[in-house]
């Protein structure tokens, strides 16, 4: 299939170090195909509470950790779930066979021109408002130029000096098992851009070859001298929002919770499925360490390949330990500005590439697209259409007298929150409704790997049940049995 559309790239292996394929100057490169997982299972996995392993941290360094402070900032790419791509009318569905959702525009054919999908602006404005940002009423697109086989035009349409939104913040409630507490993390900017394609490459009969090729059903010949890389452009041109945080986080948990709150936010807003395993939400972490009391930042290291919130947290904690150890051993010069890759198997970060000075992307205004002008009326309409956001929901639940644990659970997922809100809107007791949802219903959902929208029980029925137990019509024990029956049938 891919061969009919795209030529492979042949490179002699003798000079080639496979990791150089990863060495792109931008974003995260997804080279390996991930197995298709159902969204339910994936969400389940992401919602699992973070477990921070301390085993991967060198024990010797523990006593020094308290003398140092980490400074962490996160760049997040959120793939927007618009019906069509950013600049053409191709749909995007994760996992489609390679090059089945492409057209002259997203393939970068000569003569093809981009036309902006207005939904991208709408999503960007929604996210900008939800992040309490200042919107640029007049912004524009720019070209970010670099060569890479997954970038068919040789430039990425992005925003450079006038991002659509700047200077906001995100409220985060930390989980109780990590001490709880409220944090406000600054947002530097939000800008719109297009995603790149994916490379599929074979390296001499390894797992990935068999995996990618048999999985994708591509018939291809491999030059015995070289690697053959193939390009899948399904993802090229898919709209992204890049959200850059201020360097406000200090621990792996804070960073993971920031990312988790962003995921919650984009799901509440309906702009993205926020799925990390599918690459719909991707985090690159910047981290430096400095002795407590020191004003200037330490040398910054970037970490990529973080595919879950727990890997964000664990990668940061590993990296803090590594850098603190170098500090404490007087080897601070060993901390160099570089990009490191999180290796999930080994539970450690490894050097991906050292910075060869600042990359020059030769940005200039995209001449194929007119400027983006927002009107007050347009922004007001979007502001009025925003749903209740996670932070507001949590504060409202708190005011109802629910415990923080209940609040965090219910507000974590907007579908669960909606179920809860509908239940109590019918007059059900708040605490009892929370208990039933978090108890028997959640247990059932977890066992059966279903979402709350997939169970049979309706919020009205739950409300009636709670009322019946409360007025003594049925006992709590009977209620439990009724629930068990009703959720399933």
């Amino acid at each position, binding site marked *: 299939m891919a061969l009919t559309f*795209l*030529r492979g*790239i*042949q*490179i*002699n292996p*003798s*000079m*080639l170090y496979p990791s*150089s*394929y990863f060495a792109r100057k931008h974003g995260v490169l997804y080279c390996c195909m991930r197995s298709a997982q159902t969204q339910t299972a994936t969400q389940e996995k992401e919602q699992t509470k973070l477990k921070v392993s301390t085993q991967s941290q060198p024990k010797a360094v523990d006593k020094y950790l308290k003398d140092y402070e980490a400074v962490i900032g996160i760049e997040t790419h959120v793939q927007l779930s618009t019906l069509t791509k950013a600049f053409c009318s191709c749909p995007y569905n994760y996992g489609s066979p390679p090059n089945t959702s492409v057209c002259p525009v997203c*393939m*970068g054919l*000569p*003569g*093809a*021109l*981009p*036309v*902006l999908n207005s939904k991208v602006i709408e999503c960007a404005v929604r996210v900008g408002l939800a992040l309490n940002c200042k919107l640029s009423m007049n912004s524009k697109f720019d*070209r970010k*130029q670099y*060569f*890479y*086989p997954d970038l*068919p*035009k*040789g*430039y990425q349409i992005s925003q450079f000096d006038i991002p659509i939104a700047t200077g906001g913040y995100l409220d985060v409630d930390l989980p109780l098992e990590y001490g709880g507490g409220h944090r406000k993390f600054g947002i530097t900017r939000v800008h719109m851009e297009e995603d790149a394609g994916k490379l599929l490459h074979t390296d001499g009969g390894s797992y990935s070859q068999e995996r990618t090729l048999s999985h994708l059903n591509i018939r291809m010949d491999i030059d015995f001298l*070289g690697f053959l890389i193939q*390009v899948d452009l399904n993802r090229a041109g898919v709209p992204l929002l890049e959200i850059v945080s201020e360097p406000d986080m200090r621990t792996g948990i804070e960073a993971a919770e920031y990312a988790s709150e962003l995921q919650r936010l984009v799901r509440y807003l309906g702009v993205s499925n926020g799925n990390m395993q599918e690459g719909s939400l991707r985090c690159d972490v910047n981290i430096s360490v400095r002795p407590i009391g020191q004003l200037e930042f330490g040398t910054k290291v970037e970490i990529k390949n973080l595919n879950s919130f727990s890997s964000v947290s664990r990668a940061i904690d590993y990296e803090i330990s590594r850098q603190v150890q170098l500090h404490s051993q007087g080897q601070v010069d060993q901390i160099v500005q570089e990009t490191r890759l999180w290796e999930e198997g080994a539970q450690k970060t490894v050097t991906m590439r050292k910075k060869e000075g*600042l990359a*020059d992307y*030769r*940005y*200039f205004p995209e*001449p*194929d*697209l*007119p400027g983006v002008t927002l009107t007050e009326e347009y922004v007001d309409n979007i502001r009025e259409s925003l749903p209740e956001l996670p932070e507001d929901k949590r504060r409202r639940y708190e005011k109802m007298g629910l415990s923080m644990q209940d609040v965090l659970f219910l507000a974590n997922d907007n579908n669960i929150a909606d179920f809860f809100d509908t239940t109590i809107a019918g007059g059900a007791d708040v605490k009892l409704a929370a208990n039933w949802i978090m108890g028997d219903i959640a247990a059932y959902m977890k066992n059966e790997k279903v979402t709350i929208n997939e169970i049979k029980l309706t919020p009205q029925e739950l409300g009636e049940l709670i009322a019946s137990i409360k007025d003594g019509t049925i006992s709590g024990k009977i209620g439990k049995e009724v629930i068990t029956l009703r959720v399933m049938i």
Partner: protein
Amino acid sequence: MDEFGMGSTTEGSAYQVTANPWDLSRVPGGSSGGSAAAVSAGQCMVSLGSDTGGSVRQPASFCGVVGLKPTYGRVSRYGLVAYASSLDVIGCFGTSVADAGILLHAISGHDKFDATSSKREVPDFASQFIARDNLDSKPLKGLRVGLIRETIEDGVDPEVTSSIRGAASHLEELGCTVTEVSLPSFSLGLPAYYILASSESSSNLSRYDGVRYGKQVVADELNSLYGESRAGGLGSEVKMRILMGTYALSAGYYDAYYKRAQQVRTLVRESFRAALDENDILISPAAPSAAYKIGEKKNDPLSMYAGDIMTVNVNLAGLPALVLPCGFVNSSSVALPVGIQMIGAAFEEEKLLKVGHIFEQTLQGCSFIPPLVSDESAC
């Protein structure tokens, strides 16, 4: 045509050099020289060209045909291999103004696949044309015409200047008021144009990287694959402009080159606006000389670039311009045609075509059919 529209002679073609039908040892102009030569030689009625800095108008002048560069955005660029996106326009060639107008009408209008194409209504240009028998003695009475002073000064072939002055007198006879106007930023347009066009082309041509297009070189690593595929696949003029543009956009040089060129572009636009407030149309030569010999400027790119001085400012301002033959240069062995350029305000192609049509029909004693096709070429 010149490869990717980069050149003024067709000598930069990846295939063959086109000869000028008036004198086969001379260039037809460029980049769209083939389209102009084909119309001039009677091989077709009309043809299309792309005009980024004069690539329709200069060959029209060199080949003695009508060349029309519409307002930026009047014609969709979808399907046009991009050279410099903010300057590129599809233009029309014809043996008469009427033919060029009919062709323009056919290709104009908004295209949802080109976000820079205009939504303005397209007038029926042909309905403006008045047959010669119906013209009164002063058909252009009251039309204010500005002759751009900077285009008839030093560096312009005196015979070209006198042809343009002759054309100006003809316009006066038709009832126009002709005055000289000055566009102070005119000479800045040429360097600004070459910086902006090269910058945009360096980006637009990135896709020709050997991954999908061009001959892919088997290489040891990715950078060599790109470098060697592009080195072997692209022509020398194209590579020179990509290098110039890449340089102009590089960190540390962007402000000195690209940004300043954009500021010049604003100045150029404003000076045209002021001149067109005072005048209905502006006139100038379409090129500083008639067609020159093949090979004459091949090794002197700066001299070739200087030949674009008459046309590039119009692209920077995005304005429409009509070139039509108005006289001859007779100093060489064969008479060579000279074109006059008429520049209008944005989206006023209708006015240019109307004036051009009257000018063309009332020009006495000139036939712009090359000797190759007919022997009646004397003026």
